[in-house]
């Protein structure tokens, strides 16, 4: 297991480097510069000096080399806009984003997986039809519109929860954005679970278990559920990455202080170090989750061994 972990960690290095290079090249070719966003009236000499100071006049390969060297020491650079270390900016935003994503994920798994299971146990029945209508609707609705509707119903009409903000970071502020973010993966998990369970139900080992006289509850619990979990887990792992991207819209809508809103503002203002740092954090988080998923495969399914 240890050698597997080390090998997987080493495999992440080229992925991270590729992402860093891609972002670097993209922001070197897109028009617009930080100088335009700092001031409408910068003295040309000052602008030149500023660009020199920020290293913006160096050739791209020199800048990239310097950036990688700094990155190797854990230094993400200094924000052009706020003049704060990027690591400290990300640190302030990381917890709210994690809170949001994990709550949304918990909601979507806890609701979506049982829904898919129940639907698969009676395919074509009333529950299945209703569950699939919910799932397709959940997948089709735009996050922005859904968020507004959720705000309208739960904050304005029912008055149960605040419509925006982080407050003290407690659950009452977290629920609406997490619900908005969680509906789409919940729908996806419901559909994936249903499809996985339906497929496993017709597998040979399930038929064998039934023919041995095993009760239906035991068949579902020990054979169907466990095998379906591997597929569900893969989907959950992949969805974490998707949620990080979708969180941008939700964070902005609910004034939630996460990495997503930092990323949007940094892109708009051409704050390259902050953009690179934010994207890198998202990539690292995504890789970490997927590594965790790989490890969990072995726990769920003893047949999977990491040689």
């Amino acid at each position, binding site marked *: 297991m240890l050698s597997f972990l080390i090998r997987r960690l080493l495999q992440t290095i080229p992925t991270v480097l590729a992402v860093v290079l891609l972002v670097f090249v993209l922001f070197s070719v897109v028009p617009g510069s930080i100088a335009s966003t700092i001031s*409408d009236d910068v003295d040309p000499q000052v602008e030149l000096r500023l660009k020199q100071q920020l290293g913006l006049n160096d050739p791209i390969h020199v800048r990239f080399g310097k950036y990688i060297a700094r990155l190797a020491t854990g230094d993400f650079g200094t924000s052009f806009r706020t003049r*704060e270390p990027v690591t400290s900016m990300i640190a302030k935003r990381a917890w709210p984003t994690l809170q949001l994503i994990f709550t949304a994920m918990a909601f979507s798994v806890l609701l979506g997986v049982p829904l898919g299971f129940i639907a698969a146990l009676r395919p074509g029945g009333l529950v299945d039809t209703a569950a699939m209508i919910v799932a397709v609707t959940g997948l089709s609705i735009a996050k922005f519109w859904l968020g507004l509707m959720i705000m309208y119903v739960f904050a304005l009409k029912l008055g149960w929860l605040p419509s925006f903000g982080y407050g003290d970071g407690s659950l009452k502020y977290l629920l609406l954005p997490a619900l908005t973010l969680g509906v789409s993966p919940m729908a996806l998990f419901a559909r994936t679970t249903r499809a996985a369970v339906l497929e496993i139900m017709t597998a040979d080992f399930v038929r064998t278990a039934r023919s041995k006289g095993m009760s239906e509850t035991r068949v579902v619990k020990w054979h169907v559920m466990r095998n379906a979990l591997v597929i569900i887990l893969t989907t959950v792992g992949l969805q974490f990455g998707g949620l990080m991207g979708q969180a941008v819209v939700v*964070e902005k809508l609910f004034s939630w202080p996460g990495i997503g809103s930092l990323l949007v503002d940094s892109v*708009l203002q051409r704050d390259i170090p902050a953009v690179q740092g934010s994207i890198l954090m998202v990539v690292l988080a995504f890789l970490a989750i997927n590594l965790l998923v790989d490890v969990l495969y072995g726990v769920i399914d003893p047949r999977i061994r990491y040689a």
Partner: protein
Amino acid sequence: MIKSLIGIPALMGDHMMFRMTVIVAAMALALAGSAQAQTPRKGGTIRMTAPYGSSFTSLDIHTTQRAQDEIYAKALHRSLYTWDSAEGKPVPELAKEVVVSGGGLVQTFKLRDDAYFHNGRKMTADDLIWTYNRIMDGTKAYPGARYVRIIEGAAAVEKGQAKEISGLKKIDDFTLEMKLTEKVDPGFYFFTALTSIYPADEGAKDSFIQHPIGLGPFKFVEHVPGSRIVLERWEKFYKPGKPYADKVIVSIMGEAAARDVAFRNKEIDTSVLGPAQYVAYLADPNLKDTIVDVAEVFTRYMGMNPSFKPFADKRVRQAINYAIDSDLIINKLVKGKAYRATSWLPLTSPAYDKTMKPYPYDPAKAKQLLTDAGYPSGFEFEWTTSQNESWGLPIVSAVIPMLDKVGIKVKVKQVETAVLAEVVRTGDYQAFIYSQQSGPDPLAALKCFHSSTPQPACNYMNFRNPDFDKILDEAGQTDDSAKRNQLLQKANAFLYEEAPVWFFNYNKAVMAVQPWLHGIQKNPTELTHQNTEELWVDDTSPAK
């Protein structure tokens, strides 16, 4: 007679008497209530919103020129001057007295001796000198440098040729002498938060950016990046009895629809409205009275590059102004949330000429001018635009068929706002649509068209006309304010005739304000920038 008088109540009957008594009592109560409503209440929380993005740029207000950041900075910091919305001009804030000498070039400020920073230290002239020197640090490119440059020797500091601004002299702890490079009203240069006074030395510490210290009516408590800033009353604020509120919370709410829900849900006290919401609020009897609007000092226009051959001809530029039905666009597309522009200076400018009429919609005249200019079949140009709903792609899309009617074809080039800013500064365009500050100082606003103003500064159309320069130079030299105003009006009329731009509109800033929040100032420089010490909430506010 006496009898009859005494007899009146009897004639009226007891019931009538009771009704009158009730009416009189009710009127007295109403009057008392009204007096009470007008008496500012101490305490409560003011919940403002910052609508221009998903975060504040920095807690170091010297580093950012975004309107978003000045919303909180108006509560936290103070500059040498402040904008007085009632007077419509900047007034001294940190100075009790200003003496002008040296032919208008030397300003001597007698500073307040009762202004304390939030760390308890008294402000002195050293803090002003330190602050202005900091802003001129050329290695940092602070945006406020454009204002401080008006002090003699400031540009040398910016270029690294001097260590200190030579035009600043401390006479004593509370007297500061400032020598200017031009005869201008320094109030227009030193009222924004970009020139906020920091405590000398403490302002340079790394901790300052995490926990800023100012002179404003509220001191810093907490910043949740991307969500809010919380400030609380500064007890040693120099204006007696102010501020009224205990706390100010500025929530970042970039999404108009989310602000709308929060406002209706009474979670926020102010909300900036876009065109669609403006119409909805006007139509809603419960919300229409919450609307506060003001003509802001921003002019929306299409800039034309004179190096693109057709636009070098004044007649072509005028033809474009005649060819576009601006009123139709303002009414139908911008939903009336703008004022028609006549020339460059906006409605709230002291030099605005009310007798001036905008270019009328006259496609026949436009066609004639194009023919006279040698373009009877029109021409094609590239129009660079952002997606902005009030001065971007939707407006361009509406204009295209109007120009097409007179033979002018448009090729749209859509870019991001950050890119547009770069395009405009570098002159890399044939035409662009933009919103540019055109006040509050009319002289400074018109100077953007002076030949000596470089294109990247604000002369985006690279306008060069010696006759215009002459009028403006004369306006800058005269001490007679009436004559100056007259000359500025003349310069503005000159621009109308030269038509370097399509004069589209002046922004009508609209904000919804909850009925319990009082003291809102109609600030034409930016409606969201409020002197928070003037604001107060009555006891109907849900945020006690």
